[in-house]
């Protein structure tokens, strides 16, 4: 992973540099016009959040059931990134909603449940910060519940009638607007790679923190 990191960083940087140009060249949607282009950031940021949630859930399950403390680094790092990308989605969403619906926020099933998902992972971070020793396991259980909620959030637009576009909107837009598919794919991959880069960095930091803590403990034991 260490050798891969620098090239990966360059690739992500290049992709994020290229994305605005490609998005600018992408065709305008017929009714929404310019504001529709926020999709190229909004949808990928949720994709990155779901990736983070999956990583956090799997890592938490391994930590909880196999007792492998090193995997816990991945869980806490992914949870932080889930909150970060979720926040990006929660900011870009209302920006679009203000133009498309005329209001910043609608209490429909998708928006409400997405906010809840964000709150669950904020709660995860709070438990880690304020729970004191032994709270890692409690946090892991929180992450498992959050991961179990995530599919409901994703499917909520298809179960309930919402103002938020359904999950079918991405293939629909791609087929109705030729030329929109490529920038969308680029931004999606860029966001997921960004998540991988940030995760690698954050895991490294978490490991160093663990090492430092162990050294302190060893020093005290003397």
């Amino acid at each position, binding site marked *: 992973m260490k050798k891969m990191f620098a090239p990966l960083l360059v690739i992500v940087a290049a992709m994020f540099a290229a994305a605005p140009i490609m998005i600018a060249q992408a065709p305008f949607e017929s009714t929404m016009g310019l504001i529709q282009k926020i999709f190229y950031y909004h949808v990928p940021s949720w994709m990155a959040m779901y990736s983070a949630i999956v990583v956090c859930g799997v890592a938490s399950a391994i930590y*909880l*059931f196999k*007792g492998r403390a090193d995997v816990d680094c991945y869980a806490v790092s992914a949870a932080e990134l889930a909150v970060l990308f979720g926040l990006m989605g929660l900011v870009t969403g209302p920006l679009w909603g203000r133009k498309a619906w005329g209001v910043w926020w609608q209490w429909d099933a998708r928006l*409400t*449940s997405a906010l*809840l998902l964000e*709150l*669950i992972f*904020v*709660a995860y971070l*709070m*438990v880690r910060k*304020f*729970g*004191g*020793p*032994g*709270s890692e*396991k*409690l946090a892991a*259980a*929180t992450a*498992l*519940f*959050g991961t*179990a*909620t995530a599919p*409901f959030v994703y499917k909520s637009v298809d*179960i309930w009638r919402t103002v938020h576009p359904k999950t079918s909107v991405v293939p629909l837009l791609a087929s109705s607007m030729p030329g929109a598919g490529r920038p969308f794919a680029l931004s999606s991959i860029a966001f997921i790679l960004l998540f991988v880069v940030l995760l690698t960095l954050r895991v490294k930091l978490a490991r160093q923190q663990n090492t430092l803590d162990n050294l302190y403990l060893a020093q005290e034991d003397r």
Partner: protein
Amino acid sequence: MFLRTALLVLRKDFAIEMKSLEVLLTTLFFAVSCVLVFAFAFVKDGRAPEDAAAGILWIAIAFAGTLALGRTFERERYSETLRALLLAPAPRAALYVGKLLGMLALLGVAEGLLVPLVAFLFQASAWFSRPLLLLAVLAGGTVGFAAVGTLFAAMLVRARSRDVLLPILLYPITIPVIIGGVRGTAALLASPADEVTATMWIGILFAFDVVFVTLSLWTFEPLMTE
């Protein structure tokens, strides 16, 4: 063995509770005062808004439930009785089920008081014309809430600042269940009662219950191992 352990835990909790009635009385009193606070918040010109009853009922259940969860496990913390329970040669999941049954019984009693009270104070007597659907919504919501609550309250016994962390963890995770309960009971209040919507929410509630109970049974053992 499994069921017997669960029932033994339930019987133990029941016996302790019957001696003092501490958790039951405080929970009931708190639930009723919650309802009163809402009465002051919502009532205009002597009348409450039409569909406020559903929300008031579930918020009172959630708040009172949190209080009860905190108290029941606080009791286990005195003289380390939770550790004694965990040391018993019994399946851990059975201990969880026993605790969950106790919680459900307590919340059931609280709802037995709250539902008529809210129906009486907020013009919601329409609930009683569909008793089975009302029971299904109440059961679905309560099981989901209590399943998550029991797991986290048990886990938090050992954590620092547990009183703050319980609601912080409990509310985001259980809000889908609370929403389901509110929507389901609100559908029953519409005139005529919207049975289709109510049944849909009952289905969603039970789906969440299955997920939450499975996850709790699955994680209780590793969570309670030190």
